[in-house]
């Protein structure tokens, strides 16, 4: 019909779809699913890093890490707000997260075992996130695209800080260097999995590309990430844990080893190292905060009434 034609034309012309515009139900549902997952990832993603705030080994690093975790809370706020423009409330989204009915990025189901993990998350996980997210700044849905512009700017700052943290360790004592290498060993493969299943196994990709929610395939983005990381690892003086990693002259890109997708599926199914722990901690924080939120609501209601 006419509305759909108008919508398709707008997407084709690279115009932004705005909250008041008509949009297909499936487009809206896809956006809600993806934006909610993204918002949830920001707040669950605070946990593995917050794990090291109290133990950061210098005051400068402590300040950087605190600021980063604060930014993640801020990103969560933008993204929940952007999602609310699609007609779902933050409370509702949080309930779905806590009930296990909406996802967050599987990467946060891996533990941060040492201080170097803070650096590896910055370099690799934030690096992968940026590679994924930069194209989203041109996403067809306006509020999401604008939130991503702001988020990407901050993320790239985090990524550089993570890189610099690892560099300091790599050039530090033998124990510090080993700590950095161990962290990269543990985070490399999970980071590659952040781009999602291979293109031929990806359920939602084709429609999302057509709608310009997504602009590059999973494998394209993964390749881009690998090509960026290899020279950075060399400068760091750290090895990426993949014996098959090598430059392919013909393709003008790096070949890399086979990803263990069975691990990815297991973590997705809830059997990763920290799935239960992360969700449980989130639920506990939420439950412990109920009386506070109730108090704020009661206070606001009283004072609205008093003014009316």
């Amino acid at each position, binding site marked *: 019909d006419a509305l759909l034609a108008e919508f398709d034309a707008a997407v084709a012309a690279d115009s932004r779809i705005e909250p008041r515009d008509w949009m297909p139900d499936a487009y809206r549902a896809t956006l809600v699913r993806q934006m909610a997952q993204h918002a949830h990832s920001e*707040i669950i993603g*605070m*946990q593995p890093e*917050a794990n090291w*705030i*109290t*133990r*950061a*080994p*210098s*005051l*400068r*690093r*402590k*300040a950087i890490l*605190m*600021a980063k*975790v*604060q930014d993640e*809370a*801020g990103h*969560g*706020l933008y993204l*929940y707000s952007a999602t609310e423009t699609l007609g779902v409330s*933050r409370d509702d989204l949080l309930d779905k997260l806590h009930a296990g009915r909406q996802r967050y990025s599987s990467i946060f189901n891996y533990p941060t075992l040492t*201080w170097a993990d803070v650096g590896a998350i910055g370099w690799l996980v934030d690096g992968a996130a940026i590679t994924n997210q930069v194209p989203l700044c041109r996403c067809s849905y306006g509020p999401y695209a604008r939130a991503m512009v702001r988020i990407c700017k901050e993320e790239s700052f985090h990524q550089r800080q993570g890189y610099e943290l690892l560099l*300091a*360790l790599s050039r*530090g*004592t033998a*124990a*510090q260097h080993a700590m950095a290498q161990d962290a990269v060993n543990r985070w490399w493969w999970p980071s590659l999995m952040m781009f999602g299943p291979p293109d031929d196994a990806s359920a939602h990709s084709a429609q999302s590309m057509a709608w310009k929610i997504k602009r590059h395939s999973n494998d394209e983005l993964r390749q881009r990430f690998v090509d960026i990381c290899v020279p950075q690892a060399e400068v760091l003086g750290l090895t990426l844990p993949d014996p098959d990693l090598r430059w392919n002259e013909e393709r003008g890109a790096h070949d890399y080893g086979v990803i263990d997708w069975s691990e990815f599926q297991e973590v997705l199914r809830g059997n990763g190292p920290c799935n239960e722990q992360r969700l449980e*901690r989130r639920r*506990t*924080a939420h439950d*412990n*905060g*109920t*009386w*506070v*939120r*109730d*108090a*704020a*609501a*009661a*206070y*606001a209601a*009283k004072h609205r009434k008093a003014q009316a």
Partner: protein
Amino acid sequence: SGAARAAARALGDDALVLAQRLGEWAGDAPVLEEDVALTNIALDLLGQARTLLSMTGDEDELAYLREEHEFHNVQLVEQPNGDFAVTIARQLYFSVYQELLYAALAARGGELAPLAAKAVKEVAYHRDHAEQWTLRLGDGTEESHRRMQQALDGLWRHTGELFAPLDGLGVDLPALHEEWRERVAAVVERATLTLPQGPDRTPWAAGAGRQGVHTESFGRLLAEMQYLHRAHPGASW
């Protein structure tokens, strides 16, 4: 002078230890806005701590390599977070104090004045944050009222110490006590709560953080904060 340095260091310890406590909240706040706000306050305090400690030595040596009795923070800031009401009560007591203190330091000039002039603006926000939550919790639900009153009562015994004279500071701390009490009382009253009546200091003479005597939980706070740094002597981070 040595006394001035010691006083600056004590104020730095206050800010450092409270930043550490607030950092424990990260990711666990009752609403996302509070994850932002509490971390923001922690960052301000950490910044103050770094400036103050750096005036008296190497910030990391001071933060990571001193023993418990060498820290001269008031006991109030080391008290465990408890529930959100305890954290807010601690913030209220401390931010009203810090605002008065920094204002006095800024006014009097001298070495600490530039820091104090900058920090007093930050602390005005901390105080406003604590006030807003004191009002909401005090005048919210029955449960929040009860918890907030309990929090105010529980921490009251650590407030007297804030106004013990501090050599070398150049600010008459005891003279600020009455103003502090009035400001706190005004918020507490608006929040339909009662200003605690019990003693405002522990009767145990040795119980003053300013003399390097702390409470049991402080040892655990330091162990967590310093462990990694101490496990790699001489390393740079």
